[in-house]
């Protein structure tokens, strides 16, 4: 994954992605900059990929350098890592967690399983296309991806936030009827009311 970036010594010159210290950018768009450099990841073990999170947040790779910390509740989070395969049962929890997160929120699918089912491609119980049920802003391919891949994916997420392309939550709001229909096709009846009004431009309810 990191091979394309050349030798470690040269990498700093080639890839100057981080603009946290540029005051002018902070004054121009404080919301965008603060969103980029304060990503709080929801602490939710969705699959086996969660095993890559401890080395990422602890001493070896130390994601806190970039303001990425895990938080214990979806209300405080704005980044959701879908770590590993998604079973039908997990999907229910994932949707509830996603809907509880405050906007703006970003989702990254981690590993090959959320992308297309991975090694569970013919399982009756595994969700093959996560993108049908909740909007995903980016994918990390691999089984397992290395912890560096998480950090590289976060730099890609920064670029997306800069270009205002990380708009999964807006897509969810806009196409909520379709997403809800897809969710009901897999899970049967959902026991919670629609989060947005069916017209698609409603406000978020408390719940």
């Amino acid at each position: 994954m990191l091979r394309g970036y050349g030798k470690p010594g040269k990498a700093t010159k080639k890839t100057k992605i981080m603009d946290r210290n540029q005051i002018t950018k902070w004054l121009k768009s404080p919301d965008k900059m603060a969103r980029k450099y304060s990503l709080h990841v929801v602490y939710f073990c969705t699959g086996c990929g969660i095993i890559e999170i401890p080395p990422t947040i602890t001493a070896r790779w130390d994601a806190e350098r970039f303001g990425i910390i895990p938080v214990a509740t979806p209300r405080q989070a704005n980044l959701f890592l879908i770590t590993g395969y998604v079973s039908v049962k997990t999907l229910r929890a994932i949707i509830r967690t996603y809907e509880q997160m405050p906007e703006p929120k970003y989702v990254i699918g981690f590993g090959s399983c959320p992308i297309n089912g991975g090694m569970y491609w013919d399982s009756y119980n595994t969700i093959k296309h996560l993108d049908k049920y909740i909007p995903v802003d980016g994918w990390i391919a691999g089984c397992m991806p290395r912890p560096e891949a998480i950090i590289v994916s976060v730099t890609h997420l920064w670029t997306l936030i800069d270009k205002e392309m990380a708009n999964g939550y807006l897509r969810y709001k806009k196409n909520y009827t379709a997403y809800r229909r897809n969710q009901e096709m897999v899970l049967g009846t959902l026991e919670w009311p629609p989060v947005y009004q069916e017209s698609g431009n409603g406000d978020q309810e408390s719940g």
Partner: protein
Amino acid sequence: MVTIILQSILSVLAALVIGVFFLGLFRIIMARIHWRYGPPLIQPVIDIIKLFFQKGMSHGIMFDFGLIISLAGSLAIILFMPFGNWCPLSGSGGLLVILYLMLLMPFGVALSGGAGGNPNISIGISRKLILSLGYEVPFLLIMLAVMTQYKSISIVEIVQHQQNSHWALLSWPLCLPGIAYFLILPAMLGIRPFDVASAPQEISSGSMVEYGGKYLAFAHIEHAFGLSITIALFVNLFLGGAGNIVFFFVKMLVVFFVGLCVHAVFPRFRVEQAIKYLWKWPTALAFVGLVITVLMK
């Protein structure tokens, strides 16, 4: 009049800046102890800016007002607390007002959480109140000892006495309550080994579980104020205050750093272990200190 208003604004600003600085320093020092590099010093500021731009969610009018009560309590304490030579409302109240107002901070959070309706909040609040029951007993004994020794309830006079002679922590009968105060300081700050009330791994950060967006931002600010107040009270009562804000800040920094080292190396007490500890050593020290102070007078 103008000086009082100016000093009020300045001391609130100083408490906020010092508290947020401590939150940043907290994360850096913890990272260095873990052998990590750690976030930049302004990371709490970035977090608070982001949280204000995020869409929070309310659970009714009490949910909002509880936080406001809590914040108002902290702001009121700061007006009565000398920060260096700034003490806007020094003529009135003193320690007794601070003792009463300090109850507002957990009380407001409890009111706010009660409206949230999450079971984790109830557990967190009950733990917080039990813990405050644990540290209030030694805390009141310490306050009594200090008030008896200096025959005053005014913090300004207590600071003046100490600056005329020497620090309370280094004088004979008051060193015992001073040590007791330092022993209960982690419980008052809610840091390890007394972070049962906001344990992220057990009860999803307790009373903070439903806060998001600007509510969480205000909770962070309230936490920053709480840090400033508790440490400032220790510095005023036992380290002799300071002539100006810079020396005061340096003393606060030392106390905070020592407390942080305790935080970094200890695991978490269970609630009943915490109560057992709080009602044994700090209470005994404070009580013995109080008795000796009374007998020597």
